């Protein structure tokens, strides 16, 4: 018999960005809210200067990340392979502990475009039938730009977003992104300062007719006090952002932007080392009664709650739904079931350029410094004639100057005198041109429960089936050619390319992106989405699942702004309608 805790109005599983946002919103509504976090507690004091600036501990040994022995996924590239569990993190790095990935992210805070939210409608209009792969399963999000815009704006104020406005209420603004959707308010803060690579990229891109603008950043350019009374210090360009807590409290995170305000509320509480293993359902399977978790002593505990918010990492949200029997598990053969359907990812690639005589001073930088252009987002260029859908953010970002991960030419030995010589020669002389590309959803890119592998509590691991598809490889080749044109303008002394091209398969061992999305997607049709457009489970109405899991496919940039805006959107509906009349917010018909 599991131990039982006193009932709460709402239980939140995971205390990262979405859990913190839901915590604020639901306590605002007067609910008694409890968050359960499976990792350790973490506060700003944990990141105090200079402790967090330790590349070996955080950058290499992944102190802030989930440990595969606690939460591995098994991975295969197609339905015929046998999936094997991760033994070591590689391609993606989910966060662990309070703050989650929101504590160790880089801090690029960018919106999707209005087209990205309605990609299926765009595809139907812009592509002749038969041009796109027939196993593609792209969908509209079911929510429009105008509906989400106030939530983007609010979250960007929470974060102190720094950048240059490109489209203010329909008016194009000099220096910003002319392709961005209309913003109701300008960026809260001016853009970060430019680095050497930024200036070079900007000049070359303009010469080629593109429209570069400063990377939208949640590393703040000035001191900022947000609507919750939370504060960020001005970025000092130390370059310890991605994989690190911020020593200067300059990077938006649940810690800097929300948690102290949330913890002050008497109707909020949280427990750490509380590993939720499943959501418990009532006998009819239509409502959740609470969650079961394993506490820090290894004991099983039942936490009753009137509402359950699954706010853990996208992959774990899907796993919790599957392990709890919320909705039907997706079957790629019969194409039935929705939970696990439409897992998508992000594709990256770049050109490493080395300049003998240019000093880039990469030790003075911030994760989100740099320039990007959106000329190759869907709708802004003719991808149909190249046979693919999607787009890429083209950018040059000098995210860090840490020594161990310094990019060096491919033939450099990994140790010894040769390594030292190369490090001495190339450190500070490297600049990267990058593309971050969209990934569509397909019939066989999916998540389900592994039939073999279980976690220490006997619960099945999540199985990921994923490989690059022809559409993305075509996109990658097209973007490579565009980046080559930029490299031609810049004329490096030496350069090397790194792209996914025809015949390449997904490699789980080297880092690609932590932008794992989909698997429990939102939509307006219960036959192809696990969640309705308010992120409410179609099947269990008092379960809401905010996160990257809700994206029906991925767009060509960083997901945090959209994840947060969707969470506020969902919370608004909960506050305005659901609490007054709990039940399905959309009918299945």
């Amino acid at each position, binding site marked *: 018999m599991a131990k039982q805790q006193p009932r709460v109005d709402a239980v939140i599983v995971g205390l990262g960005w979405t859990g913190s946002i839901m915590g604020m919103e639901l306590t605002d509504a007067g609910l008694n809210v409890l968050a359960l976090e499976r990792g*350790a507690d973490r506060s700003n004091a944990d990141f105090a*200067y200079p402790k967090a600036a330790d590349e070996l501990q955080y950058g290499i040994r992944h102190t802030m990340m989930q440990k595969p022995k606690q939460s591995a996924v098994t991975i295969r590239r197609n339905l015929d392979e046998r999936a094997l569990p991760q033994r070591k993190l590689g391609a993606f790095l989910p966060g662990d502990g309070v703050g989650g990935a929101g504590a160790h992210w880089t801090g690029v805070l960018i919106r999707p475009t209005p087209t990205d939210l309605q990609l299926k409608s765009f595809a139907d209009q812009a592509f002749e039938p038969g041009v796109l792969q027939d196993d593609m399963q792209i969908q509209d999000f079911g929510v429009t730009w105008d509906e989400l815009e106030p939530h983007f704006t609010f979250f960007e104020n929470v974060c102190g977003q720094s950048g240059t406005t490109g489209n203010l209420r329909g008016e194009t603004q000099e220096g910003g992104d002319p392709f961005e959707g209309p913003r109701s308010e300008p960026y809260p803060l001016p853009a970060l300062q430019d680095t050497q690579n930024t200036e070079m990229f900007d000049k070359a891109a303009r010469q080629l007719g593109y429209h570069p603008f400063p990377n939208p950043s949640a590393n703040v350019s000035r*001191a900022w006090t947000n609507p919750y009374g939370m*504060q960020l210090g001005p970025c000092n360009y130390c370059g310890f952002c991605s994989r690190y807590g911020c020593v200067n409290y300059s990077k938006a995170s649940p810690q800097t932007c929300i948690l102290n305000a949330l913890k002050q509320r008497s109707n909020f509480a949280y427990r750490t080392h509380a590993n939720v293993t499943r959501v418990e359902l009532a006998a009819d399977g239509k409502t959740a009664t609470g969650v079961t978790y394993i506490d820090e002593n290894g004991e099983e505990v039942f936490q009753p709650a009137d509402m359950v918010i699954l706010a853990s990492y996208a992959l774990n949200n899907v796993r919790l739904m599957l392990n709890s029997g919320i909705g039907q598990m997706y079957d790629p053969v019969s194409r039935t079931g929705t939970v696990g359907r439409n897992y998508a990812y992000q594709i990256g690639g770049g050109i490493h350029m080395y300049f003998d005589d240019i000093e880039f001073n990469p030790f003075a930088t911030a994760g989100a410094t740099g320039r990007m252009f959106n000329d190759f987002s869907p709708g802004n260029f003719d991808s149909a004639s190249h046979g693919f859908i999607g787009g890429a953010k083209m950018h040059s970002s000098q995210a860090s100057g840490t020594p161990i991960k310094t990019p060096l030419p491919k033939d450099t030995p990994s140790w010894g005198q040769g390594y030292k010589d190369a490090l001495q020669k190339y450190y500070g002389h490297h600049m990267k041109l990058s593309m971050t590309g969209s990934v569509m959803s397909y019939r066989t890119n999916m998540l389900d429960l592994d039939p073999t592998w279980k976690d220490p509590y006997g619960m099945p691991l999540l199985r990921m089936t994923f490989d690059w598809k022809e559409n993305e490889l075509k996109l990658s080749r097209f973007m490579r050619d565009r980046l080559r044109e930029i490299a031609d303008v810049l004329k490096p002394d030496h350069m090397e390319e790194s792209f996914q091209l025809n015949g390449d398969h997904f490699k789980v061992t080297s880092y690609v992106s932590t932008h794992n999305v989909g698997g429990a997607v939102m939509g307006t049709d219960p036959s192809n989405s696990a969640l309705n457009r308010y992120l409410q489970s179609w099947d269990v109405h008092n379960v809401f699942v905010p996160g990257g899991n809700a994206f029906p496919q991925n767009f060509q940039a960083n997901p945090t702004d959209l994840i947060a805006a969707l969470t506020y959107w969902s919370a608004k509906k909960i506050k305005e309608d659901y609490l007054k009349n709990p039940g399905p917010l959309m009918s299945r018909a």
Partner: protein
Amino acid sequence: MTARYLIPLLAGSTLLSSMPAFADTDDIVKRGAYLARAGDCVACHSSPQGKPFAGGLGIESPFGTIYSTNITPDKENGIGSYTEEQFAAALREGKRADGANLYPAMPYPSYANLTDEDVHALYAYFMQGVEPVASQPPKTSLGFPFNQRWGISAWNWLFADAEPFTPQASHDELTERGRYLVEGLGHCGSCHTPRGIAQQEKALGGDSEAYLAGANLNGWWAPSLRAGDGDGQGIESWDTQAIVDYLETGRNVHATVGGEMTSVIAHSTSYLSERDLMGIAQYLKSLPANPTSDDAASTEAREQSTDETAAHLTAAKNLSKGERLYIDNCAACHFNAGEGADRVFPQLDGNSLTNAENPAGLIHTMLAGARPPATSKIPAQLPMPGFSWRLSDEEIASLATFVRGAWSNDAGPVTAEQVAEVRDSLGDTPLSRAPDPNGSLNHEDGGQ
């Protein structure tokens, strides 16, 4: 001095209250709760792990440790059997119900100015709004002759002034409200007014130049609060809004709170209405600044010094040890010009703690770190890390010597011996623990 200080006081008996007159008992209790916040009763009358108002906090005094008493309405251990008259006598005159004298750690010389209406509200709150706690805090036992409570009568006769509050015609209504709070419940003078030979505050009201002129508090400098026009240093350079921001949130465009004042803001001033805080600010601005010493630098000279230090640190050539340590450990937040960051990181240039004659508070902050209070308006807590695990006594001394002479600062050097003395006095300082080489984060539970 601006014109608003000269607006004559309007006549009327409710002027001292920022709230309407209350009839309803609940409202009186609420008002008493508010006044108890203004008096920061909870700070002294609660022990760190104890229940609110149950007493037991040991207050170090030059005469020995004085333990605060239980002031919950428990009849045995608290003040539950006090009549309102006895309660008033304790507050205003330092008289216990049995007639014995309270030790003047209780700021009754300040509370003497309380109006009957406010005493009534406080009484209502302590009898009806506070949970009774049946626990007896440790007894205060001072050595002879300080254990002779009758001796306090003479002290009281000499130093305590039980005169009720009398409005000053030269102040406007809001400024008078501020004076009432500062001189009375706020008992700001307890820390900020220098003390005389018998540990008495040298002045209890703004008519004396000694009042709130700054004082040494266990090695920390409690700066002058006389904020009127002077040479523009210290809080004289703060406008009224900056004072309000500081009291409401523990930080403003110039400074972030440290030391004992952190608790005052967390438990008292952050709960006061903006109107009352503005009254306090106006009153402090009405007090003429301390006289400037003859050799003080002019504003222009100070600005020039600030620019010179900033330029030297930016060029980063021929750095002294203190300068190098500043760049490596401090400049990320406080910047080369020592200006900090707006409302987030305090300014070191002109900072009162940095420039205090006794550097103990500055050394303590460098070694142990500091954490601003989480207030309802600004819950953010961006901690200053402690450097005791990272810097030696000599290094802290070089660094402190540098910041005390950098920019327009003009305070004396610090020795390694002074640092060692402060280091020896430190207990556990969570913000200054060394990183854990085994890879787990340095979490301290409960830290926000």
